[in-house]
């Protein structure tokens, strides 16, 4: 699991790369919460373009990030979701809480 982030104009973008399972979850949550606390963004984007695998541990990561963003008065969405992670997200009904954008958006 490799983590990256960028911040510009009130938008925090967090890049997840590799495999997000229970083993990687704590490190991921700590990273995201630290970035949110440092920037207090109005919007957070979880970019999953390079995430090749995710299990239900990723759902808990998304819900925790969502709650932290709510606490700081911001919104969040998940973008560029690959097939396997998308199936997990849909099976978990997480799109009732967090907006999911599956396709890679080309600039």
């Amino acid at each position, binding site marked *: 699991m490799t983590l990256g982030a960028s911040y510009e104009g009130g938008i925090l973008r967090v890049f997840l790369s590799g495999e997000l399972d*229970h083993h990687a979850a704590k490190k991921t949550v700590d990273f995201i919460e630290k970035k949110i606390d440092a920037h207090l963004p109005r919007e957070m984007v979880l970019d999953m373009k390079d995430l090749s695998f995710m299990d*239900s541990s990723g759902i808990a990561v998304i819900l925790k990030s969502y709650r932290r963003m709510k606490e700081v008065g911001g919104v969040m969405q998940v973008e560029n979701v690959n097939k*396997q992670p998308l199936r997990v997200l849909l099976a978990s009904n997480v799109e009732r809480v967090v907006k999911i954008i599956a396709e890679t958006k080309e600039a």
Partner: protein
Amino acid sequence: MTEINNVRIEFLSRSSNESFARTAVACIAAQLDPTLEELGDIKTAVSEAVTNCIVHAYPESLGKIMVRARLFDDNSIEVTVRDWGCGIPDIDKARTPMYSTGGDDRSGMGFTIMESFMDKLQVRSKEGRGTTVIMRRKISPRVSKK
């Protein structure tokens, strides 16, 4: 239905073994010539079952986890994930979506995902003795994939 392969692995309940277990089962399942999506489903279900052993069966200690994959000539795979940990007091409750004893670190979706990604899910557990999860999934034959 005849068994054509039977592979068994055992490892300690370290979280670093989650990726090992799902990758190992995927390697065996590959002999049935699955699609990437079928392989992804099997990997996800195995990841959920093994994570349950690590998080719930052995919460305070390291214990043994056994994963067995059997392939059958009807192009199906059966995956067994077994632990000798604390057991599940109420299996129906544990299988309820969003229910978890793991706090907000866990989503409570593990069994739900195993159920929806595999064709069949069987859970046997005895408190203080351990838990066995058996999952089956049929792989569509290659001819119908074109």
